[in-house]
């Protein structure tokens, strides 16, 4: 380990003593979650090709703890919606989101997923936040792999600072209720 240039993630703030380390549960859980986000790629179009580049050797999303691409929504933590979502696709996206277990996060990659992009038409959903809540938006048409990575890192920040109680808070329930989810 010593001669390689692997960066270990820094421990959270806490009190170190002889044989113990005290910190907040929140921080430990956040740290663990943030560095092992399993992505569920929901790739429909062009941005999906850039995601392939992100996954491949040159950009390598695996460096951020997302080596394991989870194609099953049940085991995924982060839903990455890449590409245009049409109105025909909307209900399916929503179903996939509902199948994911809490805690779950969503990244809208690209202009189409964020806002409908250049396709302001009768058949395209004008942003996936019409059907599911979104945590991080990545702009670009399509975004470069660096931008996608940046989006993932932004999400990691969110995950790190998230309270372990957030998912059972009334605000969160209200948010889901506003999307008519369960």
């Amino acid at each position: 380990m010593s001669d390689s240039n692997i960066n270990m993630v820094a421990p959270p703030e806490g009190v170190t003593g002889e044989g113990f380390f005290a910190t907040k549960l929140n921080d430990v859980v956040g740290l663990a979650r943030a560095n092992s986000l399993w992505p569920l790629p929901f790739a429909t179009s062009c941005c999906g090709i850039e995601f392939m580049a992100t996954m491949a050797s040159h950009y390598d999303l695996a460096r951020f703890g997302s080596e394991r691409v989870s194609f099953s929504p049940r085991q995924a933590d982060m839903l990455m919606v890449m590409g245009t979502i049409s109105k025909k696709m909307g209900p399916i996206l929503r179903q996939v989101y509902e199948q994911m277990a809490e805690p779950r996060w969503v990244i809208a990659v690209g202009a189409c997923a964020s806002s409908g992009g250049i396709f302001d038409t009768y058949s395209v959903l004008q942003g996936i936040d019409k059907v599911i809540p979104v945590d991080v938006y990545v702009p670009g048409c399509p975004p470069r792999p660096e931008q996608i990575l940046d989006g993932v890192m932004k999400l990691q920040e969110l995950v790190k600072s998230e309270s372990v109680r957030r998912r059972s808070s009334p605000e969160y329930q209200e948010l889901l209720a506003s999307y008519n989810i369960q």
Partner: protein
Amino acid sequence: MALETIEIQDKLIETFGENVFNFNQEKDIFSLEVASDKITAVILFLKNDPILRFHFLTDLCGIHYPDNEVDRQFAIVYHLHNWYENKRIKIKAFINGEKPEIKTISNIFLSSNWMERETYDFYGVNFIGHPQLKRILNMDEMISFPMRKEFPLEDSGRTDKDDRFFGRTTTNC
């Protein structure tokens, strides 16, 4: 010897008389118009004739002309291609705007199956005899035909874009 357009024209006129007309060389494509009730016969002839041999259907699509008289409000455009002689031909058939229907060619060219479904989806043209004439790209629940000129591009029910911020009012867009 290469297939000359005049030869195609002569053969078609000889067989179909007044049902084929408006022969025209548009840039590199020879085009003609066909009376819509004769379309299957003409295409079958073009495909099976030992000299013409237009055996490949390149493309099929519709066009909407809402300003034409009612009998010519929709056009179905067929692009055929003869690979032996490398000759392309474009056939247009105009159909009625109120009751758009034309015979299917899906029994002549398998590939036209989905192209006709797409044309139905976009324009509501009824292809008589098509085995599976249902929507292909849009949702089954949709009732209008989006490529008709009167249909707006943007979703009329959208709430995310406020027209005031785009300088649009009901009169100027």
